[in-house]
């Protein structure tokens, strides 16, 4: 069992998490993340379990919402906590790449 992740592995997870890791932090993360991954690897030893999953301890009956409008915020409230805004819009630096989603 290696006691360290590679630098590339650390940078990969840091990218997924959108957390910048400075050069002088990489070494520390290589060790710490590996230790946690060694912990969770213990699950690989568990055998003879049932495939059925428990996503959460949900109540048995789910009551869905009726399609009736409720209160909304006014644009001022929307912007209240936003660090940058312009007009009624929340502002971010220009986004060039296309959305990966829907």
């Amino acid at each position, binding site marked *: 069992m290696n006691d360290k992740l590679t630098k590339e592995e*650390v940078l990969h*997870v*840091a990218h*997924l*998490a*959108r*957390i*910048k*890791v*400075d050069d002088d932090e990489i070494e520390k*993360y290589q060790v*710490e*993340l590996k*230790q*946690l*991954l060694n*912990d*969770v690897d*213990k*699950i*690989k030893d*568990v055998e003879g*379990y*049932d*495939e*059925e*999953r*428990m*996503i*959460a*301890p*949900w*109540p048995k*009956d*789910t*009551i*869905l*919402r009726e399609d009736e409008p409720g209160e909304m*915020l006014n644009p001022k*409230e929307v912007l*209240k*906590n*936003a*660090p*940058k805004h312009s007009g009624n819009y*929340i502002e*971010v*630096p*220009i*986004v060039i790449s296309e959305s990966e989603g829907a």
Partner: protein
Amino acid sequence: MKYLDKTIEEIHEALKKKEIKPIDLVEESFERIEKNKELNAYITLNKEEARKRAQELEEKEVGDNLLFGLPIAVKDNIITKDLKTTCASHILENFIPIYNATVVDKINENNMIIIGKTNMDEFAMGSSSRTSYFGAPKNPWNKEKISGGSSGGSATTIAARDVLFALGTDTGGSIRQPASYTGIVGMKPTYGRVSRYGLVAFASSLDQIGPMTKNVYENALLLNVIAGADDKDLTSAEKGKEDFTRFIGKDIKGMKIALPNYFMSDIVTEEIRNEVEKAKKILEENGAIVDYVDMKYLDKAVTLYQIIAMGEASSNLARFDGIRYGYTTENPKDIEDLYLETRKNGFGKEVKRRIMVGSYLLSGENAKIYYNKALSIRDDMKKEFDRIFKDYDLIIGPTTTTTAYDLTDPMDDPSKSFMDDVLVIPVNMAGLPGLSLPIGFGKENMPIGLHIIGNSFEEATIYQLASFLEKKLNLDLNPRKDDENV
């Protein structure tokens, strides 16, 4: 002025007879908090608004509501409108919410007064409240010791008798473990018992809000206030109104209690095991049946917890990106830079570590190898609890493996904070209710807690046993000497 040391009935009578007003209780709380400032229990005090509320309440009828006009402390990961809610993180250091958590609405409707927001581990990730951006709270029994976590501030302020009531949150023991370390009563209700709307999510399938108090009765009273289905939380359960104090005072003759061997194995210190044995004996002397039982999967709970909690957290905390609220980095080069710098500077070490590991655990094939497998074993573990509850009313064990340790103990072992909660995590996995009750003290005069686990929605039975033991033990649980009192 020492009303906060009186019983809740006495306070209630005094309020009713107008011998005191809510403002007197509020002022007394603030004075005590001020005097205990070095305990660092609070991140934000609600001074102005609490006083205003107290004065408003003077116009209202006290009625039969025992909680009328009483101050309450709220953990700082529960959203309070117009009152700073930081989650003990730099990323929300100046965040002023624009809505209320459902529990906060309920507190207000019940005419209680929010006195302040309590210190905690950053985003509830930790077991000693030392990951707080605002520094750790200190244990009122010994200021060199931790109060536990993540609800360390709420535990501290209750133990110090600043207020009678506090709310904590519990994802993997975060109410019960600090309750045990500080000698108070802490309940994590059944998953779905209390609405999570407005609780800043750490691990959605595990999180639950619960009451923290100095005794069992007051604990049940507070649960009466905060419990109930909420149409804003689909995972909250419709169970009808119930009085959680209803079995308090009943005897426990014939009650069947299971004590899993794993909970009494050598992962737990001898002094704690001894106290649990003593409690077991009292229960047996009073007609309860206590059996040692074997339970599968208990030793796997921490592993499951690490996978599920970190996986969910990596997703839940993705929303902190510096765009709509919270801290943001200055002059980002581009959108990627905005994300990377904001999250690097905004989150603390523990949080970043968990987000990164969680992201890894869900990426590509790992979701199957780790996360889905963990959900399967989680289901088996719940079934194992179901099996025990076919034959037993309750399960008991120690809450923690040791008593509260030194604030200066090293924090460089990333696994340590998980292992602190090894005995309490299984309850979150299965969504069950669990309570920690003070049952004695260790060599260093630090409190020891008994963990009482009930079947789903059987909180009232837990309170029955807890109040019975509380009465039998009749411990002095006030860490402050009389002359220290206000």
